[in-house]
């Protein structure tokens, strides 16, 4: 049930400005911590800007999609959607310079497999990753708890896929549309596109599903408007109709207006990231290895949670207390 869920309460935002603001805060927070005596001009040059971070994240969201598509054994589509949610939520709270997205990406996918009941072992999972698999599984398992902590343990994700099924059943039952199964490929394609946008952080899953169905209908040059206004919403929700139409329109624009990513800039940004990323969280760095060694020694005394020095200092994150900014809650 989406109404009353943590997804609705904590992770559905009002509009894009909220998201931009959160990302900017995360970015500033990181720079503040790591600039260490650099002049403003130097730090502006050295660190990534929020806009650059956004570009890189979009790139990695694409990687995540490809990773999930190529995954063997084939995953249910909800795994990708859930992983995508986690990925987006995680980088609302942290800067990408703090935790490298390629590590978080794999961790999100692994956690999503578990949450969506796609039962797979870590060795099966890392078989899909190129390169050093032992190292990969080490990174994933070390980051898993950190990821959950940053997500505030809000792990249940309501995805639009089942809502789409419900709408199709309803359309078959209560509308005159011929062969609604034709819509399916278009719907799936559109939903996948939506997950490359921030739509899932702004709208309810049923709204996403409705937008996808209507998009597919218009692609086939059919019309379902009377069904939506009269049958689906009906008399009882007539006053809400404008809201829904507005939401659907916005979602469809978001899905359609995906800008292509500039390849060359991205390559430069990757290089910049390698330099300015937090070395404490880089598994290849000397600092990281040193820290792991120390934790391994301390392991007898206390459990080895990958709580970073940064989050250890930030009491809010540890205790899970969320600052509320809305007037009515």
């Amino acid at each position: 049930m989406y109404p009353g869920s943590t997804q609705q309460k904590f992770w559905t935002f009002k509009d894009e400005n909220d998201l931009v603001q959160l990302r900017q805060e995360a970015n500033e927070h990181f720079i503040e911590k790591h600039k260490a005596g650099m002049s403003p001009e130097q730090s502006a040059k050295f660190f990534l800007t929020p806009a650059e971070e956004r570009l890189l994240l979009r790139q990695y969201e694409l990687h995540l999609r490809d990773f999930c598509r190529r995954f063997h054994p084939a995953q249910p589509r909800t795994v990708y959607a859930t992983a995508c949610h986690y990925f987006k939520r995680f980088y609302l709270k942290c800067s990408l310079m703090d935790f490298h997205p390629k590590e978080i990406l794999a961790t999100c996918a692994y956690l999503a497999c578990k949450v969506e009941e796609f039962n797979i072992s870590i060795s099966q999972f890392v078989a899909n990753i190129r390169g050093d698999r032992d190292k990969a599984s080490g990174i994933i398992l070390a980051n898993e708890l950190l990821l959950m902590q940053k997500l505030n343990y809000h792990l249940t994700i309501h995805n639009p896929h089942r809502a789409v099924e419900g709408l199709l059943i309803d359309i078959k039952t209560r509308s005159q549309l011929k062969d609604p199964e034709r819509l399916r490929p278009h719907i799936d394609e559109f939903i996948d596109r939506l997950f490359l946008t921030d739509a899932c952080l702004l709208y309810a899953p049923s709204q996403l599903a409705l937008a996808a169905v209507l998009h597919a209908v218009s692609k086939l040059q059919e019309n379902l408007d009377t069904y939506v206004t009269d049958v689906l919403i009906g008399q009882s929700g007539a006053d809400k109709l404008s809201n829904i139409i507005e939401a659907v329109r916005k979602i469809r624009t978001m899905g359609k207006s995906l800008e292509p990513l500039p390849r060359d800039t991205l390559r430069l940004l990757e290089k910049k990231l390698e330099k300015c990323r937090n070395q404490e969280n880089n598994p290849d760095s000397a600092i990281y290895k040193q820290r792991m060694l120390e934790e391994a020694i301390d392991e007898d005394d206390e459990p080895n949670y990958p709580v970073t020095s940064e989050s250890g200092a930030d009491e809010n994150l540890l205790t899970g207390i969320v600052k509320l900014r809305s007037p009515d809650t």
Partner: protein
Amino acid sequence: MDDQICPRCKTSKYRKPSMKLMVNVCGHALCEACVDLLFLKGAGSCLECNVPLRRCNFRVQLFEDPMVEKEVDIRRRVLRDFNKREEDFNTLREYNDYLEEVESIVYNLTNNIDIIATNKKIEQYKKDNRDTIMRNKSKVSRDELEIERLIEMEKAHEEIRRKECLKLEEEEKKKKIRAKEALIDELMFSSADARNILETFAQNAKEEVKAQAPVPKATQFSTGIGFGMQQQSGFLPLPKVDEGVPFIYSAMEIETDGPEPPHWHDIEKTGYVKNVRSETDQERAGGYQANIACLRALQEALLGLYHVAERTELGL
């Protein structure tokens, strides 16, 4: 009880029903035959703990757990000296402390904790309280008094009953003799039919048996002891436990935030189910119905459709 086995000769109660397990002060069991064999000279040491034992101290094991036997033994020994009674204390608190102390001594001795210290304690107590111990030994305790009183009463009752019984029997005998004589007289002098006379007499005898007084309601055991102890006020009433307000079920309210989804019984009526893959027999066995999936999908499609994010809770 079948798993009682003598630790020495491994005879079990099952194989030799007449076997008796014996215990001594240390609490380790032996069967009767082994006791006879090992303690031929009257004394020896325990096989398991090497405590010197005397044959005359062996008793038949009453409880299944030999440790309980041991504790009973120790308790008897300790209570011989620790025989103070409630009257000897000024307050209930002191009496309870004393009881507590006795219990801890018994426990220590039974479980071999601080044996030397505990024994010293007992010796000390004996020395300190020699007078009281002697005095109390001679005094009959209140319980014993009560029992004696009951036995006395029982004896008296018994006596009375015996006398009554004798009296009744006597009267019965006399009655029978009188009836017989009457019958003979009747037969001798009456002109009626002999058979009729016999029948009427038999009838009378039967009625007499029936007319005997009803048995009074029992207020005492057959031995004559009254139910319960008359001098005691009985048990304390059970404490009342406050259970709080009873739970009342109220149906869960679901916040829909969208068009009302169809109800369970609408699903078949409106024909939704026709558009869903129907369940296989195997799935039905597990309790699954196509309706469930259908309803869930419809709910998810409709709930939250009206959602407008007014609330934004930014957390960092």
